[in-house]
């Protein structure tokens, strides 16, 4: 594509002549847009399109996982029920857990980051956008593999953490455990790719003036989350790869008869597994910190301690993993060190709660739907945190470990601590994504049904666990006396399903018929509200300049911006890590189909290697070809320097 000579290095100042009022916007739109059509949809590198896809897909997985939950509750509603066979039940709970953790919770938090980080830090696109495209397809293919396997009755049935020797070659026949292990590889690759994007975007692409102490708290949370993903994911990929090797080619990592160790699996998995739950939790916490100011009409109180809490929890979470192994017979002294750290993490958790309470106290609450979800979070998560502190005690855990008490704990912190803030965030940011408001009325019903339904469903599980009901049992005898409470729990879970159903209905309805939102319906203070709803492909006409932590509140009249960026190619600004002083201009890649092809090549290689180790060798060839296609320079204007 040849361009007229005067197009080379055309800057935005040149279009400011005032003759055509929209010249700059139209030019930018042409440069940054994704044209219609299937091939273009597959080639897009627009973080907003990719982010939207990612969020929707994650919610689809949530719905699917919820259906599995309903099946389990149906089975458990009565003693010795024959609704699900033991084999089917074991697949159902395994896939419910694995799906929720790997295909919903982490991806949705990353997906929100893909969409919102560039808007919140004031840049045009995310760093390495093709990685994001690649990541989405790998995620989609990996998740589909798991569900297709389930439909074919080849679904994993070894629990979401697949302990050996049960998941090993001797006791788990067929390909079920391999499907689980490879699903891990898929999701870890896609998570790592996004993590890299987030780190580089937050460190190097912030708007000028957005120094470290002015970064929105949710962006801090996403930054910590991204680092945690980078440090924790390798452990689980190592573990799952070793499992596949044990099962496929006869290695002995986990075989005690040949020098291997059963606990090695648990150490490797939980070294990842505990940070995993904070990877899910911290972004939700960040969302609360960023949303709250809009609903109490004042800036967050305690910005510094809140940042500290995020960093502390992120680091501390890497030293808690043995609290999942308290009953394995390790020395109690060593285990008690993990008790100490698990207890200590309650301090930064408390700091966050206290800062938010102070913010509400000092502000003027507005009881809109996102705020209702924040209130639901307080009630539910703090309760879950309390039971967390209880199971952190070694002796106490010896009674409640592997019982419904733990099931109650983690659903309280997952649903209360992550899902409620996430739903609030969807109500908050839906107007920005679609340009329309969701329904206040339906939203109240959703929040109410979910809050009440959740607590009535999961609180009794604490009691069931103390009364001896262990985890992962497909049936229980009538003589145990658990039937009444289980029936109650199952009935109340219907309220949760109803709540989610209403939520999905509200999404569909509002996307079409919701009230138009305008740029800043909540009168919030962060940068994403400075541009239109939905944002144009280039995010901001000009890169903003930030002079405080609440840019839109402190620059009420007009937004300070910089000029001088090129408009003949995709260009954005690279700034310094500490103070975000502008360093260089940088180009942002054009649309490309190669990430899609690379994802296909990767997926074929990964699925085939479940069946034969040679797939890694042969599969590397098409993968290499697609990667060359991806990185080979194309002589586009973005390639200039």
């Amino acid at each position, binding site marked *: 594509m040849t361009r007229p000579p005067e197009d080379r290095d055309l800057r935005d100042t040149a279009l400011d002549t005032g003759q055509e009022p929209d010249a700059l916007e139209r030019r930018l739109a042409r440069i940054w847009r994704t044209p219609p059509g299937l091939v273009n949809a597959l080639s897009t590198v627009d973080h907003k399109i990719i982010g939207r896809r990612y969020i929707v897909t994650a919610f689809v997985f949530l719905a699917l996982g919820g259906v599995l939950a309903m099946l389990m509750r149906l089975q458990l509603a009565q003693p010795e029920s024959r609704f699900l066979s033991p084999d089917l039940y074991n697949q159902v709970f395994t896939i419910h857990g694995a799906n929720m953790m790997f295909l919903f919770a982490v991806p949705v938090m990353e997906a929100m980051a893909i969409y919102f980080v560039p808007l919140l830090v004031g840049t045009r696109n995310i760093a390495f956008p093709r990685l994001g495209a690649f990541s989405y397809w790998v995620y989609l293919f990996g998740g589909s593999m798991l569900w297709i396997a389930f439909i074919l009755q080849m679904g994993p049935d070894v629990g979401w953490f697949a302990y050996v020797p049960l998941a090993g070659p001797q006791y788990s026949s067929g390909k079920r455990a391999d499907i689980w292990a490879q699903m891990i590889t898929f999701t870890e690759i896609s998570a790592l790719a996004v993590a890299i994007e987030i780190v580089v975007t937050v460190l190097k692409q912030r708007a000028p003036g957005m120094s470290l102490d002015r970064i929105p708290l949710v962006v801090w949370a996403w930054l910590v989350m991204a680092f945690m993903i980078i440090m924790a994911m390798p452990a689980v990929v190592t573990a799952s790869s070793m499992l596949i090797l044990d099962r496929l080619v006869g290695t002995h990592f986990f075989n005690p008869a040949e020098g291997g160790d059963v606990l090695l699996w648990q150490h490797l998995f939980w070294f990842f597994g505990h940070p995993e739950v904070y990877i899910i939790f911290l972004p939700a916490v960040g969302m609360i910190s960023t949303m709250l100011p809009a609903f109490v009409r004042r800036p967050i109180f305690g910005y510094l301690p809140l940042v500290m809490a995020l960093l502390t929890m992120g680091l501390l979470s890497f030293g808690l993993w043995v609290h999942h192994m308290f009953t394995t017979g390790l*020395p109690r002294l060593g285990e008690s*060190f993990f008790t100490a750290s698990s207890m200590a993490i309650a301090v930064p958790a408390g700091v966050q709660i206290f800062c938010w309470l102070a913010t509400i106290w000092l502000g003027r609450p507005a009881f809109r739907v996102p705020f209702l979800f924040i209130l639901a979070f307080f009630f539910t998560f703090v309760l879950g945190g309390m039971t967390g502190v209880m199971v952190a005690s070694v002796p106490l855990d010896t009674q409640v470990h592997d019982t419904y008490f733990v099931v109650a704990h983690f659903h309280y912190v997952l649903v209360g601590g992550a899902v409620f803030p996430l739903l609030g965030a969807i109500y908050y940011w839906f107007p920005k994504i679609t340009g329309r408001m969701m329904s206040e009325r339906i939203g109240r019903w959703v929040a109410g049904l979910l809050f009440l339904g959740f607590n009535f469903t999961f609180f009794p599980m604490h009691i069931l666990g103390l009364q001896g009901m262990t985890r992962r049992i497909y049936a229980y005898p009538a003589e145990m006396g658990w039937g009444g409470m289980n029936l109650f729990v199952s009935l109340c879970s219907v309220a949760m399903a109803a709540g989610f159903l209403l939520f999905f209905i509200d999404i569909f309805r509002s996307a079409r018929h919701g009230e138009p939102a305008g740029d800043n319906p909540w009168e919030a203070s962060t940068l994403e509200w400075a541009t239109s709803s939905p944002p144009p492909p280039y995010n901001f006409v000009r890169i903003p300049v930030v002079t405080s932590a609440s840019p839109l509140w402190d620059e009420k009249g007009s937004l300070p911006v910089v000029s001088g960026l090129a408009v003949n190619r995709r260009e954005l600004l690279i700034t310094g890590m500490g103070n975000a002083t502008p360093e260089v201009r940088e180009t942002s890649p054009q649309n490309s189909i190669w990430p899609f092809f690379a994802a296909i090549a990767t997926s074929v290689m990964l699925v085939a290697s479940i069946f034969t180790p040679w797939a890694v060798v042969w599969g590397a060839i098409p993968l290499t070809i697609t990667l060359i296609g991806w990185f080979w320079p194309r002589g586009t204007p973005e390639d200039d320097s």
Partner: protein
Amino acid sequence: MTAASAWRHLMPVAGILLGPGIWAVNMELGQILAYPECSGGFRFSTLATFLGAALALLGAFLSYRASGFRGGKGGPSAFVGSVCALLGSIFAFALLLQGGATLVLTGCER
């Protein structure tokens, strides 16, 4: 980069370097030392843990000093210093709790 400027850059993050670093090492020690300490002998784990807590507090203090003893106003260096001071303190607290474990337990408990 001279030694002096390197030192200046490290001071604000002393809290986040010393605290978590010592704590991580101490976690490992706690696992390993349980076995020899059961058979009697000097309680290295107690010494290591409390010494580690002191060092973590030192790191927190250095960060606080680098922040100019201000809340966090005064540029990224002061901000980083204050954040790391608080962070280092929490790690010191975790180390103190671990020290408590070495005082109550002998290492023989299974």
